[in-house]
């Protein structure tokens, strides 16, 4: 039984280290294997394994505070390990001891999970996977494609969705947690993007990959319900990463302007009103984003209506990530042209924060569902809108 760790303190320590490596991984688009090793070796990666299975049993608040700080050092690393950390917490919540074998691997062998619920042609509608799971003796054969499979290069376990048509042909979504197999899955396109470049979010081609019955998480068809019930682990941890970027941008801007001098000024740039006002806006937006995030973290997550819970958490993510993006844009404005130079972390923050606008849940679907719910309009009724 591991002793109770202060994951926030650990994150603070690691963030400093990762910050020094962030630029190189960002420029080269390489996966930060050495960071992942540090996360495993320090026990950070066992944070959300249930305590009774030898893990840290971290709360959602501990997780988010730690991830927020880690993201300030290297957002890509934080986002890559986030799939693992929040995934474990969700698995513990929805599948419990069913995944005991995986918890053991994480604690004893340093296994790391990567997760894939995005697919080309699905457009953020993760509850409609296109990957097909065909029953075979002892399990399933999976065929399909996955995109944005964050953390893939460092993963030894894969957490992924698929669909199995039932006897009436109705697609039943389901999820698997499987040891990364030797065959049946290949990288079809390496991750090469403008932001979050060191997350190894590759595209995968899944061609007959085997998943055993014992690797099925929850039951057939109840993936959406399970995911919605546990979605606070996902969307809160996502948001914490982008708030972390925003706060790092604020801290950086403040530290630089306090010391910055221009030939034409008799005091530091911090004395310019335009700089003060922009920083005030940054401070205020960061405070608002953090408040919304942690209100969601501390909310009652036992909502008997999983869809309502999903909508509340989704609205939180959209607001928080939008504020975070505004903050990094303001940071660039305050710093000026030099903020765009490779040597400034602000330009990386600016690119990484853009991903916050784009990772699930999608803005339009969130708004559609939240609006319909408020107006008592059945969310899945067709036609979707007035004809």
């Amino acid at each position, binding site marked *: 039984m591991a002793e109770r760790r202060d994951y926030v303190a650990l994150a603070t320590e690691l963030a400093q280290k990762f910050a020094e490596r962030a630029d190189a991984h960002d420029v080269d688009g390489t996966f930060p294997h050495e960071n992942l090793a540090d996360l495993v070796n320090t026990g950070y990666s066992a944070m959300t394994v249930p305590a009774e299975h030898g893990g840290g049993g971290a709360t959602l608040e501990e997780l988010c505070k730690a991830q927020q700080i880690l993201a300030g050092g290297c957002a890509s690393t934080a986002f890559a390990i986030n799939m693992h950390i929040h995934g474990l917490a969700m698995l513990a919540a929805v599948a419990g001891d069913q995944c005991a074998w995986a918890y053991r691997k994480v604690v004893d062998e340093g296994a790391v999970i990567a997760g894939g619920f995005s697919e080309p042609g699905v457009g953020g509608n993760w509850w409609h996977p296109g990957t097909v799971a065909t029953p075979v003796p002892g399990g399933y054969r999976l065929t399909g494609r996955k995109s944005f499979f964050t953390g893939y290069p460092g993963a030894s376990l894969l957490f992924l969705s698929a669909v199995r048509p039932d006897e009436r042909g109705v697609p039943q979504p389901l999820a698997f947690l499987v040891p990364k197999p030797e065959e049946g899955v290949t990288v079809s396109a390496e991750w090469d993007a403008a932001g979050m470049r060191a997350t190894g979010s590759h595209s995968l081609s899944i061609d007959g990959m085997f998943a055993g019955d014992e690797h099925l998480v929850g039951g057939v068809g109840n993936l959406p319900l399970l995911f919605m019930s546990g979605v606070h682990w996902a969307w809160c941890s996502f948001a914490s990463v982008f708030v972390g970027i925003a706060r790092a941008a604020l801290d950086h801007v403040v530290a630089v302007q306090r010391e910055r001098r221009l030939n034409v000024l008799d005091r530091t740039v911090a004395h310019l009103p335009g700089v003060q006002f922009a920083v005030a806006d940054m401070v205020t937006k960061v405070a608002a984003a953090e408040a919304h995030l942690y209100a969601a973290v501390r909310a009652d997550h036992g909502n008997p209506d999983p869809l309502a819970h999903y909508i509340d958490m989704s609205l939180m993510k959209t607001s928080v990530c939008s504020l975070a993006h505004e903050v990094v844009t303001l940071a660039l404005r305050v710093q000026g042209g030099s903020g765009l130079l490779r040597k400034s972390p602000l330009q990386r923050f600016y690119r990484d924060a853009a991903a916050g606008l784009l990772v699930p849940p999608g803005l339009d679907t969130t708004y559609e569902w939240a*609006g319909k719910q408020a107006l008592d309009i059945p969310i899945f009724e067709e036609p979707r809108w007035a004809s």
Partner: protein
Amino acid sequence: MGELSERDRRWAAVMEAARDLAPVFERRSLEHYDEGGFAAENIADLVAAGVTAINVPAALGGIEATLAENVELLKTVAAGCGSTAFALSIHTVITASLRDQTGGPWHEKLMRAVADGAFVIGPFTDESSGSNWTRPSTTARRDGDGFVLDGLKHFATGFDAATHLIVTAAVADGILEPPFDLSAFVVETAAAGDGLRVERPWRGGALTMTGSHSLRLDGLRVDGDAQLFPDGLAPLFVMSRQQWGHYCFAAVFLGLAERAYELAVETTKGRSNTAVRDVGRLPGVQFAIARMRARLATMNALLTAYATEHVEPGEDLLGFVADTCVPKYFVTAEAEAVVSAAFEVIGGSAIRDGSRIAQIWRDVKAGPLLPFTADQAREFIGKQAFGISPIETPRWM
């Protein structure tokens, strides 16, 4: 458990009364908003329901509501009537701020009066002061044991229902420099006589029913006992209570925004027209409603976080004041955006009807204008981030 639950029971009763009164206030607002005047009937209802007594200290048998509870209450009242909520906020801010100032000769007397239904207000905007409460143009001249007050005070919100005024003035004896010459006095309205009169009755473009008259103090004599704090300490006192003003003001405008959102939802449900069978099925309406929800959730989270976690001034008083600006600045600006969006969902018919949303539209603009204004807030917050004192001169380059 026993005493706590009794106190909580009383608090729940106050909140229930406030929730019951909100729709009553809204009906009255629909009738009386345009003619203005003061929501005196509303304040009387709040007094009768014990709402105005929530900040009476526990030691004197009061509920001694927390800042977060004050915020919750003001939001609830604001859903019914912005003018009433704003007048109430002045009273709750003053009574909460003063309740732990034990020792002064006025303390117990005033708190007992509040328990018995007193309504205390404070016009803190002086003629030509540009909402800088630290530099009043009102003067206090020492006169024997007491003081003589002269000046013109604007925005005497709630005056028509007030039993007591808190009046600030610069003590005109040249001993202390501004802002330390600031002093504050209790004035009993019933005893003020000719020295206190309404110079110009309120006819506001927003918050029309607050009776925020301009008051002339004309040789108004008060006892020495009426001075709330020892010489020189008033500014520090006010700063160390800034959280009450900022969060309670923010609560009023958040309450208005929440009501605007509700009105948009209520108006849309089941609405149809010749072109659309169910207006709620329009995506633009759904998206607008959702955006409002998201914004309100952020505003609520921020204000709640501050009202529970940013309550103690600590060592760095100016830093604390700057910090308390954050939710006031954010919430009042966002409230305006939410009300604007709600108005568009409700649509043009709301202009025709003398509707509640059109009243809220007018009221919500007062939010960013109340002190600290948006510009003051940005200056304080920005300087604080850099460790620059907001009262250092020159202020900039």
